């Protein structure tokens, strides 16, 4: 039987957008699409999964040890149902990245990471070198395993009526013990999926000025804070804020770059942003070559003025 299996992700508020988007990516093969829900899902997530347009079945592995699934346990489950599928995919999230390579290796097949385009049945376009280049890659394997950059696809509608099927979960792998999840970051959104990102470079000049200058603007915009590698290396911002090829690759609706020169590896990490705004006192700064809107000015003048303008 030929079909596509999508591994769903959800949180307390229900199915994640990335899953709705991936459900459209899954339609590329013109095969029935089933959705796998791991763990003791809330009723909302299951109901929303059943309503995903074009989905045939929702498979629910209702086991407590799959609620925070380890790669070991998730792949054991996938192994038990893989025979029914010739495509297994997930959004390119930390969960998908953790589980699917392990599954692919157990199936002795190669895997595609972060497909941007799917040319069914087995050809893909994917980013390499942090998106500086795009590679067209064929996967000769009989079973296609991939993660997709979900934001490349529009979410499917909620007019489906999929059958809900309980599937048995194999016993937990006792060698791996889940301890805890810590959703850090305070009230600011997560860098990799934020709608707005406010980034500062080395011109911020100190850790105190970094937070005091950019913090209020980020709060006003509901934005994630980011930093260049130079600012991180100088100790103005913690490592986890680093945006770029060697940090976090971002693709927000608006990316604000303040005092950012535009090093290659930084530009690589922001180039998929929808709108890039750059403020730099140096009119020759590389960042202006990719910015949709550039303002040659001192960021210490601009940021407070912008924050005040947005409060109106």
């Amino acid at each position, binding site marked *: 039987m030929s079909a596509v299996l999508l591994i769903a992700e959800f949180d307390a508020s229900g199915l994640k957008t990335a899953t709705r988007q991936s459900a459209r990516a899954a339609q590329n093969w013109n095969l029935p699409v089933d959705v796998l829900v791991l763990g003791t899902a809330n009723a909302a997530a299951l109901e929303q999964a059943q309503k995903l347009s074009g989905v045939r079945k929702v498979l629910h592995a209702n086991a407590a040890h799959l609620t925070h699934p380890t790669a070991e346990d998730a792949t054991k489950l996938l192994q038990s149902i893989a025979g029914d599928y010739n495509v297994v995919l997930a959004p390119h999230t930390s969960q998908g990245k953790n589980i699917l390579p392990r599954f692919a290796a157990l199936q002795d097949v190669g*895997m595609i990471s972060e497909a941007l385009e799917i040319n069914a049945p087995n050809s893909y376009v994917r980013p390499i070198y942090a998106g500086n*280049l795009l590679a067209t890659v064929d996967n000769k394997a009989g079973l296609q395993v991939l993660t997709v950059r979900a934001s490349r696809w529009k979410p499917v509608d909620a007019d489906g009526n999929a059958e809900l099927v309980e599937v048995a979960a194999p016993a937990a792998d006792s060698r791996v013990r889940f301890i805890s999840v810590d959703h850090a970051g305070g009230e600011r959104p997560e860098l990799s999926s934020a709608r707005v990102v406010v980034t500062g470079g080395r011109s911020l000049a100190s850790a105190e000025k970094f937070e005091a200058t950019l913090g209020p603007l980020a709060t006003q915009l509901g934005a994630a804070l980011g930093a260049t590698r130079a600012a991180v290396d100088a100790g103005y911002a913690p490592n986890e804020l680093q945006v770029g090829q060697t940090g976090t690759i971002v693709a927000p609706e608006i990316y604000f770059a303040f005092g950012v020169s535009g090093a290659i590896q930084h530009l690589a990490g922001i180039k998929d942003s929808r709108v890039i705004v750059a403020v730099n006192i140096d009119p020759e700064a590389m960042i202006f070559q990719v910015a949709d809107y550039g*303002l040659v000015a001192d960021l210490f003048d601009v940021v407070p003025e912008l924050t005040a303008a947005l409060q109106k």
Partner: protein
Amino acid sequence: MKVLVALKRVVDFNVRVRPTADGLGVETAGVKMSVNPFDENAIEEALRLKEAGKATEIVAVTLGASTSQEGLRHALAMGVDRVIYGEVAAPEALDSLAVAKLLKAVVEAEQPQIVLLGKQAIDDDAGQTAQMLAALLDWPQAVAVSKLTVEGNAATVVREIDGGTETLNIDLPAVISADLRLNDPRFVKLPNLMMAKKKPIGTQDLSGVAAAPSLKTLKVAEPPPRAAGVKVSSVAELVEKLKNEAGVL
């Protein structure tokens, strides 16, 4: 306890990469190469395990073209005890699964308790090798680790996940992949680099390991460039354009 570190030599992150003239690959001729930054985190963590008395021997391995041995020199200069160059027939065509199969053969020969490697290489950005190696060995895995604590035959790891961290306790032996936050790799001092040039590089013949790739790259191209933007002259104009032209505020 022995720790095996697998490293890859990649185009340095400061280099602007370009497709080759035939559009089948990436231009590497005359381009600065470095050890993959995440693999440097892996090397550093292994060295710290040894300095803390948890590990007794650190062995680094690399595959690839003969020039990738320079990466092993770097690892020696950082302080690893021994290095292995894995010889394979067609290193340029390897995909992550093939690399995992080859590394499995090295693991079987070396019998480490921990295999450490970067969470991904900054060239292919696949992020698969650690997980695949763990699968083939049937070992536990810990991916994108930012904190590692080894206690006897187990390790507590903090993993970077979307929007936070996850803490696991895993039995050893295990495969662990390093996130950037795991540590700050030490700088290599010139005298250490000179000494590393005199140290021997061990080899392991991996040409007999079945590792045919299933992925084939047909084309490498630059993405369409971003359309040229405009300069604005004031904050007021910027806000107006973001609201009315871009529609993002």
